[in-house]
């Protein structure tokens, strides 16, 4: 029988694997499904912690994670994708998928070493390094991908990392539910409004190369 902390670490490894999978994928639909799965795993982890800790806040967070990041935002992203069937693959990233995947693995190792050297004594829980690695992976995706739909996925991954870290280390963090709701609002604003405006004004979800914005 595995302990609760070992089970948490095991789900954490699953979350990390989804993160590495996302880095190696250039087709947008599987990326959306991947982030939905990752959010579901985070929600499962939150639900498990809510059960063991008898915490209503963590249960609310689990519900929010499923509702917003596992269902609503992926649904909206897929609806956006329907309008751009020709854009089912991130063309620029497709040429660099191998280097992205290798870079992501290298980053995960570096983040793990940094964590061990600096924060491990403060956070001795099994799998404590995983949310930090997940954050780095999310930021890496944001920085290296050029399609707005995929950048949203990077943002959601970073948000998953914050929720994961908060649930693991700072369960009594004041206003944590409110903070996560706020991040979700921003996610919905990002996805729902700006992407729609972008489609209307520029006709593409691809990051434009505009000479006006150079310099």
């Amino acid at each position: 029988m595995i302990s609760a902390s070992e089970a948490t670490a095991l789900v954490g490894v699953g979350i990390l694997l989804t993160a590495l999978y996302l880095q190696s994928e250039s087709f947008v639909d599987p990326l959306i499904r991947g982030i939905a799965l990752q959010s579901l795993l985070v929600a499962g982890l939150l639900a498990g912690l809510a059960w063991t800790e008898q915490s209503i806040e963590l249960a609310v967070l689990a519900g929010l994670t499923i509702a917003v990041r596992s269902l609503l935002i992926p649904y909206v992203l897929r609806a956006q994708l329907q309008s751009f069937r020709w854009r089912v693959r991130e063309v620029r990233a497709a040429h660099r998928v191998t280097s992205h995947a290798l870079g992501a693995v290298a980053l995960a190792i570096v983040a793990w070493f940094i964590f061990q050297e600096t924060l491990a004594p403060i956070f001795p829980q099994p799998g404590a390094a995983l949310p930090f690695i997940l954050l780095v992976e999310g930021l890496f995706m944001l920085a290296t991908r050029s399609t707005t739909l995929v950048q949203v996925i990077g943002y959601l991954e970073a948000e998953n990392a914050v929720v994961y870290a908060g649930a693991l280390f700072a369960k009594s963090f004041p206003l944590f539910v409110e903070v996560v709701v706020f991040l979700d609002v921003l996610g919905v604003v990002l996805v729902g409004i700006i992407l729609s405006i972008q489609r209307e004004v520029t006709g593409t979800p691809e990051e434009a190369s505009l000479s006006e914005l150079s310099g």
Partner: protein
Amino acid sequence: MSAPDPTFWLFLLLAAPAAAALLALVPYSRVSQLASRTGAILSFGATLGLLVSRTSGVFGSYLGVDALSEVFLFMVTGIYGTSVWYSAGYLRDVHRPFLTPQVYYALLNAFAFAMIATLVVTDLGLMWIGVEATTVASALLIVLERRPASVEAAWRYTIVASAGLTIALFALLLLYTTTGTLNAFRLAADPPVPSLAIELAVALAIVGFGTKIGLFPMHTWLPDAHSEAPSPVSAMFSGVLLPTALYALLRVLRVLGTPMPAMISDLLLAFGIATAIVAALLLQRQRSFKRLLAYSSMEVMGLATVGIAIGGIALYGVLVLLVAHAFAKSAAFYSAGNVLRAGGTNRIAEVRDLRHSMPRTSIAWVLAAVAVTGAPPFGTFVGELLIVVAAISIGAIWLAGVLAAAILLAFIGVNFQIGRMVWGERPPGDPTSPPREVPEWGVAYLNVGVALVVGVAAIPYLAPALRSAAALLGGSLP
């Protein structure tokens, strides 16, 4: 009659822009405008009320003010008011706006509310929410003019600022795990024992909030958002949004007590110097006058960060610099907005001979340009001088030299380009008709006047607040 309770001013400060945001949605643009103007006047009045009553303390579980918050409130509510005033004319000249005037005013008031809320809460988590809320409220304002470049700028702003703030949230999680509280006032009054975890949390906060402050290399959203936003919004971005994010960082830094650990001051110094130098160099090659102003703001934020790292009298200099810069830079953006509205272009090369075509705007613009670049006798000069003197006083002559070089480069870069637009001759046979003066030229004069007064006189109530705020940060006074 007794003076109102401080909680009354706090209530008014928050309720006025919140109510204005809601009332602005009434489907009559005149009502939106009137509600916004009333909200802005009331919140500025409440700030004056706090300054005059020298309110300091914690009210309830989450609200609190001191001299530091009051100085920043003066900036935010001041620029909020002038931007609301300037918006009416600006909106008139936006053809095919993406937002209706009602939604524009609602978002502008919500943007101001988010900044004000950031400045009056005691909890660092709530402060983080406030800074994040500014992103939500302001991102849509950038796309007002429905241009592809605006949408792109809004996207970059949202994604980069949010990524930075995610790092800041991680920093707060770490800080909370180590200290058990996020009450900034309590942590400042009784700083925790220094540890690697706390220093790491503060270092992450510098990177996280630094993204919103516009520190190099996390600044990439800044020139795009400032140049593509409508001018009244650019004024709020440059004048007060960046300082509001800096305020949140200052509150985190206070957790360390004084003097701050060498690792943190070195990190601030590195970010500050890099930001000031890179911005001063980049602004030399700008083709858009709004981007030119954006890089100038970045340079000022770099100087302010260096001042915070140095401490001592530099902290007083930082506060004076921020206040004067907020008013001067907003004046510069209002003038830039006038030129953009009248000429239909933001290209430096396409604007010439403004002294004849737009004489009132051009004088305000020249005054604002010399003010933002630290010319005497404006408050920016006093602030920058104090930072350089503080560098010399700690024996860092090299640092003083680097700062002076950045200031000089920015001064030449900004004033040369604006000088070309004001005094440059139009090419002979230019078929385009020269731009005409717009009615809203007066707002820029008002703000550049405040930047001047901050430099030459001790403004009643504000001057003591500036001194108290510097002392609160552990600074010495000139």
